[in-house]
């Protein structure tokens, strides 16, 4: 465990490191472009016109701010569970409604920022990788809006299990390329996007979907997603007159979580929980890189990875295509090692249960990704006091998962 820094919000250093994590581990072909991007992003960040554009599109195109919603029936349900076991607790649960964003998830926050940067750099062609398709849909959407060519790499397995999003991307004018190599999931989609980028580096911008990849991506994506936590701060002050007591979000690469967490990292009174995908179980196949992995180097950064003893990357598994990735953003690895954030996990079964519970209690069908966070809320909230304010990031809506979950539930009825 490293010694605790004065601020958890000052990273990364100028070489893109969060402690020992992060960095720039890419082929030489990409280095000049990554250095250009670093300059272009620094330039954009300090440009008032860029910030004005961001604010305008956030409000009128994405539909921000997203509401912070008091989930009364879920709260009551968990208080009953607390009472049934002889307790008198049950935290007050708020949902940060990122699923109400245009395109149905938090992904659009990041894509908007990156597309505006890409435009400043004069790029005409955008590539992206996607797991569940939410990042692909957000990228296809903004490419349509700004008239840019869009190619989305998606593992062939994910193309099959997330068909509604494939159809949406194609309707928006994007070309979806099913990736047949490796495990044919998100990891391989990212490899294939990197291969495309190496080949078309002169005119192509790689819009990475999470807080991972070579510096400056983990920082840049975090900055674009931090609007989630900034709004939450403000909205909780308005609703309750104080900061929340705990935050909780699901983690694949970890961008929705980082967006919620970052503005609160230096608030020592706020407990923070990330929830990884435990798949079939932590002793079986899963996607919990922090819980079940160790530090390695992949996709441009050093971070926790699932791998064998020879440094070969292992197959991740999650019911949720968006969490089915054997790595995690480097800043999460650092927050894990410093102990600032507590990382938990939820299995496929627990996520399915939470998916159904939230749908029935609140009339909100969550993405399977977000359902992982809800699964841990169900466990944590009854043990907290009634005045405990817990915010869970509802990172996406479950429309894309309806056919998949429907099939699973139908299979069980037979």
């Amino acid at each position: 465990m490293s010694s605790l820094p004065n601020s958890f919000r000052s990273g990364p250093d100028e070489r893109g490191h969060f402690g020992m994590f992060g960095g720039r581990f890419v082929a030489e072909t990409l280095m000049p472009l990554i250095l250009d991007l670093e300059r272009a992003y620094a330039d954009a960040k300090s440009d008032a016109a860029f910030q004005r554009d961001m604010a305008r599109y956030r409000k009128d195109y994405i539909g921000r701010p997203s509401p912070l919603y008091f989930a009364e029936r879920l709260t009551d349900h968990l208080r009953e569970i607390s009472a049934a076991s002889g307790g008198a607790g049950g935290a007050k649960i708020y949902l940060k409604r990122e699923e109400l964003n245009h395109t149905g998830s938090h992904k659009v926050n990041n894509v908007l920022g990156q597309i505006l940067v890409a435009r400043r750099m004069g790029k005409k062609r955008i590539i992206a990788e996607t797991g569940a398709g939410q990042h692909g849909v957000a990228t296809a959407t903004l490419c349509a809006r700004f008239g840019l060519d869009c190619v989305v790499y998606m593992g062939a397995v994910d193309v099959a299990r997330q068909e509604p999003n494939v159809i949406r991307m194609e309707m928006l004018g994007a070309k979806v390329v099913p990736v047949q190599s490796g495990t044919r999931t998100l990891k391989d989609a990212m490899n294939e996007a990197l291969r495309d980028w190496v080949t078309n580096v002169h005119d192509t911008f790689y819009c990475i979907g999470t807080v991972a990849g070579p510096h400056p991506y983990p920082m840049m994506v975090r900055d674009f997603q931090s609007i989630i936590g900034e709004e939450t701060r403000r909205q909780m002050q308005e609703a309750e007159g104080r900061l929340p007591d705990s935050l909780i979000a699901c983690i694949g690469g970890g961008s929705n979580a980082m967006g919620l967490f970052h503005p609160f990292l230096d608030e020592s009174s706020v407990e923070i929980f990330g929830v990884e995908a435990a798949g079939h179980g932590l002793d079986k196949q899963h996607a919990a890189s922090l819980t079940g992995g160790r530090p390695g180097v992949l996709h441009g950064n050093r971070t926790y990875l699932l791998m064998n003893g020879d440094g070969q990357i292992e197959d991740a598994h999650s019911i949720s295509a968006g969490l089915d990735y054997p790595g995690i953003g480097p800043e999460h690895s650092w927050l894990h090692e410093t102990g600032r954030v507590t990382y938990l996990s939820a299995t496929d079964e627990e996520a399915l249960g939470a998916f159904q519970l939230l749908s029935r209690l609140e009339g909100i069908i969550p993405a399977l990704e977000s359902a992982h966070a809800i699964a841990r809320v169900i466990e944590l909230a009854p043990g907290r006091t009634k005045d405990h304010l817990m915010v869970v990031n509802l990172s996406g809506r479950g429309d894309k998962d309806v056919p998949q979950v429907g099939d699973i539930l139908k299979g069980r009825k037979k």
Partner: protein
Amino acid sequence: MTTRIDTRFAELRKQGRSAFVTFLMAGDPDPATSLAIIKALPRAGADIIEIGMPFTDPMADGPAVQAAGRRALDAGMTLTGTLRMIGEFRKDDDSTPVVLMGYYNPVYIYGVEKFLDDARAAGVDGLIVVDLPPEEDSELCIPAMKAGLNFIRLATPTTDDKRLPAVLANTSGFVYYVSITGITGSAAADSTAVGAAVGRIKRHTSLPVCVGFGIRTPDAARGIAERSDGAVVGSALVDALSASLDAEGKATSGTVQAVASLAAALAEGVRSARQAAE
């Protein structure tokens, strides 16, 4: 300190010709056949042998090299096994330079210091690690230099004059010019552009410049050899290997010969080239 790579280029300069550099994946399609192939390469005319360290996620490689890595991993190849194979090769051949090429994670997990010790002991002369740019030199490049191993850097068409000094700063052995922006096995750059690029790099360094990516035929190899200090061929050899396998992807009695024959033809192409332009 003089390495096998330095010695080999000095000999080639005396002979007035460019180097023929071959690439194959360690353990493809199985460890025994792979060893037999690398033993056959110097006889076929290879001046320098690059050996791929198989990795599950080779982000800069095309389908042929990806598949080769997969076959090797499926056949049980590991980094330890790769070093052991080079040790075996060294029992018969103490002069042909061997360069390991791959991605950082397996080396990082093996442990950098231990890897450098074991690689030197096995008879490795140089390293090419695709995902370690100069910005990450402290990871492996600097320790490798201290251990007496050449760290060979890739330069690409995107490496402009401003960046070249950074790329060349800690490079030794030779410079590997990747003639296209793209993955291994993709289309070849035209040799005139390659000549200009090699000339540009040579204004910044006295190291030999070898050129790779997209060279598939003896004619193409000759064209590149005329304009550089070496032609690197990988995917074409891997394809020849792959084409010789049976329906289950296993080696056949013709596998070693299939690779050696193509290597011999390519070596002939390189040897027929006029001396590289200075």
